[in-house]
Structure formats: C-alpha cells, structure tokens
C-alpha cells in the first residue's frame, strides 16, 4: 500500500546479507587468531605439556570448529549485527513489559574500564574498594527508592530474583517451624509468568488469582485463597495490563494476616519511581530489574541483574556476601548464619551494576520522578492514539489512564480481516519497527504490548503510531501484503514446522546436517 505523503513512515529496508551459517565459511587451514607459544625455557623444562595428561583424558579428534581467517569472522558477525534491530536504531516501544529505553553510551565507556573489566572477584578487598563502594551505594539508592532496608545485587535477572524471594520465604517459614505446612504461593494471572514458575521450582503449589472485568485481581478470590498454607504472595503492580491495583495495601494486609510474606515484582517500576514505594504498600520484599527500569542494555537477552530488597526482619536470610561499610572501608560479609546461601557465583553482574549506578547518578531524585512521569505521559498519549485506530482496543477499564504500558488487542481487526497480531508484527518489521505479541497469559485475544518509556520523543511516538495505523489499514485493503510480510526485513516467512518435531528440529549445525543433509553450496 502506498505510503501517504503526510505519513512519517520510512522507505525502510533492513540490511539483508543472506549470510551463511558460520560453518559454511570454513576453509581448511585458515586461522582466525594465533596463540603465543610458551617461552623456550618453559618448553625446555616441561616439554609440550601434553605428555603430562592422563592418556585416557587426551582428546583424540580436535573439535570440528570452523577454520576462518580473521576478517571473514569479523565480517560475518558484523553482518549478523546489521541483521538485528537494537533500541539504538529502532523506536523500540513495541516490547511492552520490558522497558526498552535509552542505554547511555557514557555508561558503556565507564564499564569498559580495565578498573572494572579486569577485576577478579577474589582479589584482596583493599584492591576492590571502588567496586564495593559502587555496590554499597547502589544498595543505599534502592533502599530509598523502595523504602525497604537492605538489598542484594546477586540476582542475575527478574526471574532469578523471584527464585531468591521464594528461597527467603521458605527459609522464613522453616525458621518458624512452618516450612512444611505453608506450601502455597499466591500470584495473579497478570503478574509475570515467572512469579508462578520460579516459585514452583522451590516446590510450592501455585494459587493464581484471576482478574475481574475491570482487569484488577479479584480481592474476594484472594480472601478465599489465603489460609495457614499460604507462604506468600508474589505480585506485579501495575500488572502487565498497565493498571495499578489501588487496593494493593489491602492485598498485602490480607496475606500478612494469614501469616504469609509479600514479594513485590518490580521488574518494571518505570512508571512509579518516586511516586509510590514497596514499603508503603506493605511489602516485605521487592526487586528491580536494572536492565529494565535502570537503563542498562538488554544485550539480546542478558547480561542482566535484579536488585532484591527486604525489610530488616528478613536481612539475615539474604544470600551471602553482603557489602558492608564501616565509614572508612568496604568489605564483604559472609557472616549470616541463617542465609539461604547463594544464588549466583561471586557477587552479581558487576558491569550491569556499574551502569545502573551511573544511570541513577545522572538523574537523581528529581530525574527519577521525571522519568516516571514522562514514561506515563508517553504511555497515555499512545493509549489515546492507539485506541483511536480502528480495530485496536485496550481491554479492561476503558477510558481511564494507565501507568507505564498497556496490553492492547487486535481482536476487532482480526474478526474483520483475519489478520493476526503475529502477521501485523511481521509487517511492522518492514518499516523498521518491532511489535511484540506478548507472553503468557493468553487472555487478551490477539494481544500486543506497547511501552514507550521516557526515551522516545513525541515525533518518534507519532512515527510508530503511523506504522500501526498503516498496517491496520493495509489489513483491510491489501491483506495479502500483510499476510506475506515481511518483505523488507532480513528473512521471509520462516517454516516453523520443524521446531516442534523431534525428528526434524535442529538446535545445532551438526544435528541439522545429521537430519537434513548438507545443503547445496
């Protein structure tokens, strides 16, 4: 469909290299990089080293890695990078719940310092005072942001923080002699799926509270769900719908009265920084994803980090070590006899921690509040404009405002045209946009989640809106164009039929060759 003159849409085409799989580039004998030889004296003293190996442990055949000269390796991965759209390139508002915002370059520069990258975790404490200071101060920032009393930075993601909260819940009840009896964790259907999944890993039975017609979790259902088997409540607020649950303090009170602990999944807290806190809502624990709200890059899916905080009553259960400060020296404290132990080797994803520290230092208290308010303003601007697109809707609580994101639906458009969210997402790619079809729960039909954060200008938001409008219109006028999309992205419609078939799926190149034979050159 022709792009109208007044549209902001670009005549976009993504880089498409038709790049080989790396193994196809192999040419026997080529070398990508050379390793230094050991000094002659070393060789004289110990020989080639291989003879010292137990014969039954020597690798007979070398690994069948490809053999490629350096420039071609570089070119290969550069081409693959061009076949990827990071937030630095696109208007990355289509990945709701994930807070894809600007990741300041200065923070990358700082994290590239050898004073960060070349630190070993077991160095003498006197040589890592700077690293420990950053961890300690970040803990203090989060205490203020949440109102809770102590944070650990060991968790490697939001889901990992949920696992850690679950471990703390279990420890807490065990210490009170109720570990066996309290075997249920309550969550809500619009909390992140990991609130249920990571809790189940620790053996808990999951009780899921569903929503009422207005989208809010049903407080009457919660009242019925709690009992002396309740270990805790894990809940997101605002939930994945972007709706803030105004009765949240009642929720935590009900669970506390039943003897449970309350964990606040604040993986995404971008809309409420400096507006409202975990402490006042009655939570015992909360966590923040540094790679979401606190501006560190997502790296195609990590490295990530979550700061997990607790009230003073639960500090003794936190994973070891904690970073302490006595006014002159920072140190690692392993002396927590009731600790759950560890959830990750060493202390946490330090480069991520460092970048989040720099991000907060750049904004301060007022800046954090500005982030939240602008993110919410941007979201409500999009809400108004998206719901005005014929075929799009925002289920639940229509007409009211949302916090930082909205789970929308293309159901009306689907009923009218047969075009699915997935097909729309594929067509959006033709204009350099990403649109995400959302994870569990699959309650909102033909769902899509949009979260604009504070990072994109009004002009960019308008451009993204033009994309949604254009594709929705195309679904009516030129459905084939949408169905066969993408046309100007990296690849064409993928044959997904093999992905669920054990006889045909191929998670590695070697299994592809075994199952499908060597492809023609």
């Amino acid at each position: 469909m022709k792009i109208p003159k007044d549209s902001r849409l670009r005549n976009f085409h993504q880089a498409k290299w038709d790049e080989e799989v790396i193994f196809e580039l192999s040419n026997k004998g080529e070398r990508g990089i050379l390793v230094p030889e050991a000094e002659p004296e070393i060789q004289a003293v110990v020989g080639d080293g291989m003879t010292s190996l137990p014969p039954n442990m020597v690798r007979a055949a070398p690994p069948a890695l490809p053999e490629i000269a350096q420039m071609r390796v570089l070119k290969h991965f550069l081409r693959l990078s061009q076949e990827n759209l990071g937030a630095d390139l696109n208007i990355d508002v289509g990945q709701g719940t994930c807070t894809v915002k600007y990741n300041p370059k200065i923070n990358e520069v700082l994290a590239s310092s050898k004073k960060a990258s070349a630190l070993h975790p077991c160095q003498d404490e006197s040589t890592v005072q700077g690293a420990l200071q950053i961890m300690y101060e970040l803990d203090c920032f989060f205490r203020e942001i949440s109102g809770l009393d102590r944070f650990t930075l060991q968790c490697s993601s939001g889901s990992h923080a949920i696992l850690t909260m679950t471990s703390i819940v279990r420890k807490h009840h065990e210490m009170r002699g109720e570990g066996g009896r309290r075997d249920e964790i309550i969550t809500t259907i619009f909390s992140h799926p990991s609130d249920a999944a990571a809790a189940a890993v620790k053996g808990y039975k999951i009780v899921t509270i569903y929503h009422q017609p207005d989208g809010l979790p049903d407080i009457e259902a919660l009242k019925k769900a709690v009992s002396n088997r309740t270990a805790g409540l894990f809940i997101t607020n605002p939930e994945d719908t972007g709706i803030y649950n105004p009765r949240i303090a009642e929720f935590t009170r009900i669970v506390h009265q039943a003897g449970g602990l309350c964990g606040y999944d604040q993986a995404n807290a971008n809309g409420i920084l400096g507006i409202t806190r975990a402490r006042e809502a009655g939570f015992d624990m909360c966590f923040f994803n540094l790679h979401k709200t606190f501006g560190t890059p997502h790296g195609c899916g990590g490295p990530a980090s979550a700061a997990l905080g607790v009230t003073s009553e639960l500090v003794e259960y936190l994973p070891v070590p904690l970073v302490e400060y006595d006014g002159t020296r920072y140190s690692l404290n392993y002396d927590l006899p009731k600790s759950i132990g560890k959830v990750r080797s060493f202390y946490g994803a330090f480069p991520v921690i460092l970048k989040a520290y720099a991000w907060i230092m750049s904004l301060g208290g007022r800046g954090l509040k500005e982030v939240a308010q602008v993110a919410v303003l941007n979201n409500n601007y999009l809400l108004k404009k998206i719901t005005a697109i014929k075929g799009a809707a925002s289920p639940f609580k229509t007409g009211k405002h949302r916090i930082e994101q909205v789970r929308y639906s293309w159901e009306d458009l689907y009923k009218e045209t047969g075009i699915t969210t997935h097909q729309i997402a594929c067509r959006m790619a033709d204009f350099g946009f990403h649109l995400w079809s959302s994870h569990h729960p699959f309650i909102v039909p033909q769902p899509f989640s949009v979260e604009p954060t504070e990072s994109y200008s009004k002009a960019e938001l308008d451009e993204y809106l033009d994309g949604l409008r254009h594709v929705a219109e195309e679904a009516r006028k030129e459905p084939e164009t949408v169905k066969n999309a993408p046309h100007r992205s990296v690849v064409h419609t993928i044959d997904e039929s093999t992905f669920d078939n054990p006889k045909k799926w191929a998670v590695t190149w070697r299994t592809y060759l075994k199952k499908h034979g060597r492809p023609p050159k």
Partner: protein
Amino acid sequence: MNPKKSFIHPYIPNSVPEVKEMMLREVGVKDADELYEDIPEELRMKRELRLPRPLLSELELKRHVERILAKNTSCEELVSFLGGGCAQHYVPALCDEISHRAEFLTAYAGEPYEDAGRFQALFEYESLMAEILDFDVVNVPTYDWGQAASTSIRMAGRITKRPKVLVADTLSPDRLAVIRNYCQPVLEIELVGHEPETGLLRLDDLRSRLMPDVAAVYFENPSYLGFIETQGQDIADLAHANGSLSVVGVDPISLGVLKPPSQYGADIACGDIQGLGNHMYFGGALGGFIATRDEEKFVMEYPSRLFGIARTAAQGEWGFGDVAYSRTSFDGREKGKEFVGTAAALYGISAAVYLSLMGPQGMRDLGRHILQKSRYAAKRLAEISGVELRFESSFFKEFVLDFSKTGKSVAEINRSLLAHGIFGGKDLTREFAELRNCALYCVTEMVTQSDIDRLVAALKECLKAGGGER
C-alpha cells in the same frame, strides 16, 4: 537544584515543558499527577527521593565514576594467579568489537525477522559449543555455571523421577551453595568423598551411595581444585548401572586438549563461558551452558531457550526460531520447565566469536600453552622449601599449593605477595577443613615466564622473612 527551574534531561526528550504541555493537552489532563489517579493518596510519596545530587553533565558523571573506579587495582596492573570459577584469559579484539555493537548490545526480544541476527548468532553459539563439547544440543546461555549445574541436576531429577543427587565433595563451596539452594527441597544433595592424595572421587564411596533413589552423579573436570578426574567412564558406568545419569561440569577452555565429558559417558555436561572471550568483571560476566544428546527426553526438560535453524519461504534462505517453545515458562507458566528469562545472551555471542576465531587448532594450541605454563609454575613453586603440591594428580590450569610447612598462613603470604604486585592464589583455608594453609593457583596464557619467575622470587623472599601468625 532550583525546584522551579525546568528539568530538561538529555535522556528524556519529552521533558521539554512545551512538548509536555502539548501532550498533556492531547491526553486531556492538566498535570502528569492526574495520570496516577489509581494510586491512593496514602501510598503516594510526599517528598522527593533522597538521592545524591545528580551529575547532569556527562563530564561530571564520568569524572565521578572514574574517581571511584580509580580505587580499584586490576589484574592488568598486577600479576594475577587467581582462578576458581573466574579466570583471566585473553579476550580477542573481535569479541569486544562484536559485543559492543549497538545492534546486539541494545536489542532484547525481537522476532526472528527484524532480529534475525541475534537468533543466528546464538544458534551458532550453540553449534560451536556443541563441537567442543561433542554433544548435539546446547542451550542459549543461562546465568552461570552454578545455575547450569543446578538446572542440569534438576533435569536429571525429572528424567529419572528420583529424589537424590550425589555430588563430588571437591566442588567449589560457592557453586555448591548455589546448587543446594536451587534444589532444596525438591532434590536431596549428598556428597561423595575423594581420595586424600589425588582428589579423585572415591569409587567405593560412590558405590555405597548409589541407591535406587539416586537420579544422578555430578562431578567436575577439571575439578575446582584443579586436578583432572580420570575415572569419568567408571563413574558414568556405575551411575548408568544404577539407572542414574552422569552429569559433568567442565571448563570449556580445556577442551582443545582434554576429552569432553560426552566421550566418557556423561549424559549432561555444563559449565561456564566466561573464559571464552569474556572479561572477568569482578566475577560478573559469567554465562552457563547445558549440553545433552539430541534425545526428546533430554530436550524437553531444558528450561532455556533453544534456537533452531529452518528454511524460509525464499529459496536457500536460513531462518531461525524457538525449538519446543511449549517447554518454557513463557508458554506454560508454572507448568513449564523451571523458568526462563533474560540471562547472558551477549556473552554467548562473544563466545561464538571466540570459538570461530580460535578454530580447532587455536583451542589445541591454547590448551597446550596453558598446560605448559601451569606445569612450569607448579614445578618452580614446588621447588621452594616448605611449599608442596597438595595433590599428586595431573591438572590443567589450576593446582593446589600447600604452605603448611612454611610456618605462614596463606593470608599472610598473599599480603606479602600483594606488596610485590602479585595476586597470589585463592586461599582455601576456610573452604575445606583439610586444606588449611592451601591456596588454589591458576595459570593461564596471560602470565609470562618472567611473571612466574617473579612470583617464585617473591614467595622465597616472603617465606625467608620470619614471623607467622598461625
């Protein structure tokens, strides 16, 4: 900061008051506060967050953070013999070049169309790892070795439907603590003893513990204490005869020269990719891998993303996507396998670049180089009076030195070495009762002969000096 002065921040384009006004009008409210109508008054913050004064200019921010970082002394400034789960290896320039690419660095969860690049790069990561491990399936990276070992063990528990796992007692206490927490209360962890002279797993102890309730035996090779476990096949055979699985943790950088676990009976291999093209970052740049055979009963137990290769509607074009997605918690919530989410993908991409550069010969050369260096260091160090190699077994890059006969504690020795510009080996005194006054030394390609000779000279000097605090 003047509260009345408008706050325009470079990271927030719509902080410009005129733009904000226009958007508020569009939305139909007077003030951004009105958008928070669902948040009850009593839950609202009545004051500004008390955080340090912001460093609004990039220059001030840079100065501030650099001033803090300057308090650190890195392993590039001194010589380091520290390992134990995180080690200094050379990071080729291409690894940094690719992992700093904005397209990879700032991407997240795009579709296999506009984000085809990350799908292919991570598929290639899986494929390259599969070659060095000689296994057919490898996951998109999880957090670290501890998580990879924990999940491997939980997978074994689900596959065999048995409640107990036997674990070699020479594991790093750090990693063992991660495993214990992750498995409790679903799987019981029971330790298997080792031979005091060699560190090798005690097969008699293993036999006596292999009961019908045992899901798996987990050991590491090379072990945390450096020695090479030579009985891998015996352990696997004993486990299999009992209907249990053999799960082996491995340092992948050793696999240019050492036999991979799949070749001595392992059903699941796991480990960490930090050494493959990733910097140490204070132990913060870890990434865990899990590898198995391509059997449905294994594949369907992975919680992680598994990216697969496929064809597309266009002739000859490769496409990528999620294999067996219904396993995951994204799809099945608590009915999925464990849980999945953001982990360490970018480190997987660095590792893919690393393995592509190294090739079969590079991995072999590097393995040999490390063997030579570590042997030279061990030999020279053990020549020092009072210093002994604790285990008589063969080792790869790490070995345990026993300082018991020197009359000095490891802490004391390490303080003295630090004064010579050397980070001595990791103190094991508090980790293993039998290894009081022992230290784990790690020797990689990053140290030169003269570094090792300097270490030997410094140690001699420090041991000559009297005292001792034991």
